[in-house]
């Protein structure tokens, strides 16, 4: 840290430290002007002689002795600085253009104080690097406010004239006047050299708009960085989203496949149910056929019943006949004995026939009961089958509706899939654009570096 070398010449203005940080004031105090007990700063001056202002110092003939001489007249300067400043600004009153510049950027009063500090700085006995920097700043400031070097040189002439008046008045001999005046003049010349050189540098800089170019470069750099960062962010974000889209597409494909499988399964189910229905239909036909056969059986048994009835009638008549034959045989006595035996046998046969007929009748009743049971069972089977067919028909309807729904969903998924493809395409386009932006940012950066290189070469 070098401290602030401005205290002496900008004491009247608010310095950087003093505006916002009162506690930092001590930083400004380290260049306070020494009192007139002069301590030579040979080393500092020697250092100046060996750096890039050495030639200028030698050119104007400024020596350590001059610096010592000037330090000796510090009391005179302290007494007369105000007068020199008044005379100087008195002359400026005749220059309206200079007053305009002064009033635009500061005030005569403030500049008067600055000039007083400046004059005291000249007789401080410290001509070092900071002193040179303070002079350089004057060149910069004059350029910034549009004060051209002729006025700068003219100002030194006025100050030197005033100084000559002061020295003539304050000193006893002409030799003394000349001794101190020449030292003062040499330091003025050195100051002018530094100031004008910096002015030229500063003017060249402003003429070439270097500050503006530098500012533009900085903005360009910022923009390029922002652009690159933004492009990178976009690309990365798109890459993330593309991954999601890919995943989405894969999911959709999987759903589509599942949907197709489901349609196939439902179709198979429908087929199975249809086949089951066909089989049931066959069973129903079979039942119908069986029912006819049963009816035929029933009819046959009824007919057998009729036949049995007829035979029973015949058997009854045979029995009556055998009874009549037995009675007649009894009447015939001995002659009818043989006939009586025949009649008994006929009676027995009629009786046996009766028994056989009872048995047949029983069998027919059993058959008819069985047929009736059959019929009831058939009826039950037919009812159950009808219910089964109804259920199957409903199942087929549900399956058909499901297939329709699945097909409709499949179509929607297909459309959605198309939409995602479009989405993906858009992402790819944005990604391409983002890459192009990143390339543009890189080119901008490159152009900016080229510009910087052009300054350097």
């Amino acid at each position, binding site marked *: 840290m070098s401290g602030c070398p401005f205290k002496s010449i*900008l004491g009247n*203005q608010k310095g950087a430290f003093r505006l*916002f940080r009162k506690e930092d004031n001590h930083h400004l105090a380290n260049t306070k002007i020494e009192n007139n007990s002069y301590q030579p700063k040979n080393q500092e001056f020697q250092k100046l002689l060996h750096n890039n202002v050495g*030639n200028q110092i030698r050119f104007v003939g400024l020596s350590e002795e001059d610096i010592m001489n000037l330090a000796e007249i510090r009391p005179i300067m302290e007494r007369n600085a105000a007068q020199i400043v008044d005379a100087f600004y008195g002359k400026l009153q005749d220059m309206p253009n200079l007053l305009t510049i002064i009033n635009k950027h*500061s005030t005569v009063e403030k500049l008067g104080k600055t000039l007083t500090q400046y004059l005291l700085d000249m007789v401080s006995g410290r001509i070092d690097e900071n002193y*040179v920097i303070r002079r350089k700043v004057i060149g910069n400031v004059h350029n910034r406010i549009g004060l051209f070097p002729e006025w700068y040189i003219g100002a030194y002439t006025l100050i030197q004239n005033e100084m000559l008046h002061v020295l003539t008045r304050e000193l006893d001999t002409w030799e003394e006047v000349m001794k101190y005046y020449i030292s003062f003049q040499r330091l003025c010349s050195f100051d002018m050299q530094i100031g004008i050189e910096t002015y030229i540098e500063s003017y060249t800089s402003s003429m070439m708009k270097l500050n503006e170019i530098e500012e533009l470069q900085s903005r360009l750099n910022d923009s390029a960085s922002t652009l690159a960062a933004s492009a990178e962010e976009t690309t990365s974000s798109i890459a993330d989203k593309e991954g999601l889209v890919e995943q989405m597409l894969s999911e959709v494909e999987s759903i589509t496949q599942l949907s197709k499988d489901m349609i196939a399964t439902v179709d198979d189910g429908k087929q199975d149910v249809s086949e089951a229905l066909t089989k049931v239909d066959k069973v129903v036909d079979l039942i119908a056929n069986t029912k006819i056969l049963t009816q035929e059986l029933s009819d046959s048994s009824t007919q057998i019943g009729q036949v049995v009835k007829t035979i029973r009638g015949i058997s009854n008549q045979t029995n009556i006949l055998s009874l009549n034959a037995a009675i007649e045989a009894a009447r015939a006595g001995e002659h009818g004995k043989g006939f009586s035996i025949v009649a008994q046998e006929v009676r027995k046969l009629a009786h046996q026939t009766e028994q056989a007929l009872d048995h047949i009748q029983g069998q027919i009743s059993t058959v008819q009961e069985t047929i009736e049971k059959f019929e009831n069972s058939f009826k039950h089977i037919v009812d159950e089958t009808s219910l089964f067919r109804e259920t199957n028909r409903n199942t087929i309807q549900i399956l058909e509706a499901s297939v329709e729904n699945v097909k409709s969903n499949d179509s929607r998924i297909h459309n959605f899939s198309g939409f995602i493809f479009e989405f993906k395409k858009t992402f790819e386009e944005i990604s391409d654009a983002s890459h192009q932006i990143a390339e543009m940012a890189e080119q901008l950066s490159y152009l900016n570096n080229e510009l910087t290189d052009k300054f350097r070469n």
Partner: protein
Amino acid sequence: MGMKEVRLKFENCEFANLDEMAATLLNEANERIVLIDLGEIENTREERNYVKFRLMHLERSFRGEIYEGYRSIYNSLWSQLYRLEHQGNDSNPYLKNLLERLRSAVF
């Protein structure tokens, strides 16, 4: 002054009025100079540009004529900036080159 032409924006900050912008930018510039002087921030062109761009922006915003209330600090900050430039001893390379040629022509 034609307020519509004044951009009350610097970098990413927007300001309600010229006064607020001036106070903020001058304060920031001042703080930066203080930090450079304290050695907490290096005295490089980039860091000085932080100050310079703020002052240049104000100069444009005020159309070259800074309000009297800010003039003193504004002038002072420019001078402090010039001092830092000379202390940093790394002015624009192009200018440096020109100056060397000028010196060799004179001496």
